[in-house]
Structures are given as structure tokens and as C-alpha cells.
């Protein structure tokens, strides 16, 4: 009655975790669609997300994936087309397919690196250095 692999990443980024995560995903999935998992509100431009007010999102690879997920739920045909993410306290949980394709495994590695590394601090340091 449950599927998916839950990857828990400890982070100090808090509500900014989604911002960091979505920057990474957008590089791989430029046509991504983001949905507030609880309300169902869809954001085509992720910068419109009220990051501090949302705790759970679904990130689809593209609009056709949105339609199919709503009609079918999880299935082999949709493997590697949706990432589910939740923020709680100092944790970011990323849920992917139980047997994710290599592209998604690589994507999760990039997310982990970005969220743990807190790229915002890196940018600030570079500005300070300039």
C-alpha cells in the first residue's frame, strides 16, 4: 500500500530547501511543473512558490506527466517523471521511484549536494570576496 524510496537529507536550509532543490531540478527538467501536494495549486514558474508556507510539493518532469499522474498514479510508464519532496524542521525528504532510473539517482545526488552545501552561502561569500 505504499511505494517509493524516501531519502532523508539533514539540512540547515529550512524553508529554503525547496528553492535549492528546484534550482537543481530545473536544470535537468526545464519544463518542470510544481504542485503544492496538499492544496493542488500548480506553479509553472517555481519562483512564485511561497516557500515558507508550503511543506510538501510534487515536481513533474513536464505537463504530460502531470496529466498522467493524476489519471494513473504510480506506474511503470511514469517511472522517472515525478519527484515528491517534503520539508520538516531540519529535514528535507525526497521521495522517488522504488527503483529509480539512473537520471533520477543522479538528480538526487545533485540535490543532496546543493542542500547540504547551502549554495546561498557560497554566493554570498563570492560577493563579499569581490
Amino acid at each position, binding site marked *: *500500500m505504499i*511505494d517509493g524510496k*524516501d531519502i532523508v537529507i539533514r539540512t540547515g536550509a529550512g524553508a529554503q530547501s525547496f528553492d535549492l532543490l528546484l534550482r537543481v531540478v530545473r536544470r535537468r527538467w526545464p519544463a518542470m511543473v510544481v*504542485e503544492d501536494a496538499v492544496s493542488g495549486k500548480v506553479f509553472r514558474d517555481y519562483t512564485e512558490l511561497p516557500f515558507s508556507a508550503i511543506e*510538501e510539493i510534487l515536481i513533474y518532469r513536464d505537463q504530460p506527466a502531470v496529466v498522467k499522474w493524476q*489519471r494513473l*498514479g*504510480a*506506474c511503470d510508464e511514469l517511472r522517472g517523471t515525478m519527484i515528491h519532496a517534503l520539508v520538516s524542521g531540519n529535514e528535507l*525528504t525526497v521521495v522517488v521511484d522504488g527503483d529509480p532510473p539512473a537520471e533520477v539517482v543522479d538528480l538526487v545526488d545533485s540535490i543532496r549536494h546543493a542542500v547540504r552545501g547551502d549554495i546561498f552561502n557560497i554566493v554570498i561569500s563570492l560577493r563579499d570576496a569581490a
Partner: protein
Amino acid sequence: MLHYTDTGGYKAISSQVTWLFRASTPPGGRRRGAYFTTLKPTTRNLAARLRIPREKTTHVFAFCGNEGLRPIEGGRGQYIFWSSNDYAVEAHRQEFHGLSEEHHD
């Protein structure tokens, strides 16, 4: 607490006086167990949030109490719980079983 299943699973479990939810090993390296949720049938994105096919949400068992159940690790532990062994629900805890669309709070 709720447990979703398809027609086949529904028939197997509902045929018993005491519901027995059998522990099994889900795909993806998740620990062997019986899994449950607090998400109701009307929940938006139910199948996506549980990451199961929609056809596996057609039927539901609802019961009171959560004895012996633990939240899974991570954010979904807010609404997904599990038992490492088969999980029995005796008649006095049973609240509803049937089509998910017919379940009411």
C-alpha cells in the same frame, strides 16, 4: 487509520472476521511490513503521495487506534505508519470497509 487496496486485496482481507494485513516487502528496499495511512480518500494527490497506482486506492479499510504502528522515517512519517509484522485488527476496532468513494469521516 486507513489501508488502501484493490479489489483482490479487498476481498481477501474483508473475508475474515479479524482483518489481517500481511507484512510484505515493498519495492525499493523499504522494510518488510504492513503499511497504513491517515490520508482520507478525498485527499488531493492521494495515489501520488503514497506513490501507488490509482487502481490500488479503489477500496479502503478504516479502523480506530494505532497500537503497534510506527511512523516511517522522513516527512511522509506524518501520514504513513507501519508494522514490521502482520497486523491484525479485531472487530471492535473496525470502522468501515468498502469502496473508497463511499467512505465518510
